[in-house]
């Protein structure tokens, strides 16, 4: 007999200590990655602009991956917002050129993914939800950036920027996080989480 847990067992939405700590650990590591990515973005965004203005939004997905990865692992309400806020705080403490705006970006981007997970009542954790949540975070990032960082641009720029962000969020933050969770589960790193047990035969 090989029993597999279904993805629809009634979820326990209370945060355990291990949920908080693991979410924070990934978020902190992401914050360090963000800080490094800021520099990469600085180098890559201009050439991408030269190809097509607004295309640098394709790089934005990297800032969004904790908003999908962390919820996929811990499966608790608020995980996307918590992860993005902690990551943004670490990024800001290390020194980011967006200053306090970093925290606002974190909040809004986390919210974009959080809304998607909430619509599915924190009970559906499939590849589809992951991609949608990544796209949601990308949309949130684009809207905020167009208001705060790139105000008064031409419509073409705005459209390219939004489409680029959504694609980047869906692929880098959404699909990639989903694949990563599978790999982490196989490496036995998620044994204390439902995400590390679903779909696997009992051993």
């Amino acid at each position, binding site marked *: 007999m090989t029993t597999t847990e279904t993805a629809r067992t009634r979820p326990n939405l209370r945060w355990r200590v*291990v949920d908080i700590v693991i979410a924070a650990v990934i978020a902190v590591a992401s914050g360090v990655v963000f800080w490094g990515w800021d520099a990469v973005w600085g180098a890559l965004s201009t050439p991408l602009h030269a190809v097509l203005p607004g295309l640098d939004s394709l790089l934005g997905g990297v800032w969004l991956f904790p908003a999908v990865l962390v919820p996929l692992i811990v499966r608790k309400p608020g995980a996307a917002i918590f992860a993005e806020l902690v990551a943004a*705080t670490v990024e800001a403490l290390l020194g980011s050129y967006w200053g306090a705006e970093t925290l606002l970006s974190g909040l809004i981007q986390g919210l974009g993914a959080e809304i998607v997970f909430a619509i599915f009542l924190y009970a559906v954790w499939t590849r589809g939800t992951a991609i949608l949540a990544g796209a949601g975070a990308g949309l949130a990032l684009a809207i905020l950036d167009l208001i705060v960082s790139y105000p008064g641009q031409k419509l073409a720029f705005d459209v390219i920027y939004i489409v680029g962000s959504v694609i980047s969020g869906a692929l880098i933050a959404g699909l990639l996080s989903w694949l990563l969770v599978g790999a982490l589960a196989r490496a036995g790193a998620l044994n204390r989480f439902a995400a590390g047990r679903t779909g696997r035969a009992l051993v």
Partner: protein
Amino acid sequence: MTGILTVNPVAKLAVAFILAIALVLSLDWVSATVALACECVLFAWAGVSWHTFWTRTLPVWLAAPIVAISIALYGKPSGQTYYSWWLVDISDGSITLAIATALRILAIALPAVILFVTVDPTDLADGLAQVVRLPSKFVLGSLAAVRLIGLFMDDWRSLQLARRARGVAESGRVRRFAGQAFALLVLSLRRGSKLATAMEARGFGAVTARSWARESRFGWREWLLIGIGLLVAAAAITVSVSTGHWNFIGA
């Protein structure tokens, strides 16, 4: 003289936010310049050495022109147009917009970097939990995770040397980097799980009301710093509105 070193980090965070919000409200070169001028005078009292100042703010100085260039090229054209090709229009309007944006980046990011340089993570967590009253479980969980950064760095080094020992140091840079990053993630999740157990074993997450060994104080020096922040914000907005340059959210 300690400058802002010992001021509660919550106050520093508040000031960074006040400046950011005030300057995001309008996109014009006047408000950004006024704020930047005030800030430059105040930096002298911050208690941060020039060496620290330049090394920590270097990324800001690099980023501001990059963003400005893209706005100069693709901003909404107005006034005289100097160059035009496909989506590119360099005009009076886009140049003004570019200068305003660059100045605004500096005016928002420089004080934030200087304020955050002097923040100790433990003090920040104490402040967020005791003064702002964010949920202590989440604040302290994050603080414990921050301490692991040093261990991640050591792990990363060992992973790198181990790649050489395994004979794969020269092959496919992207693949090797991805593999190394994945291994680091696995290691950090392991460590995180153990850390969570250690914290739980010390009563973390219990229903008992928590006490605080360190008191996070919020007194006149914190209010003074916030007052200064408000003054700078008010000066920037006042000058900008009275000279007719105020331009709400770049509309």
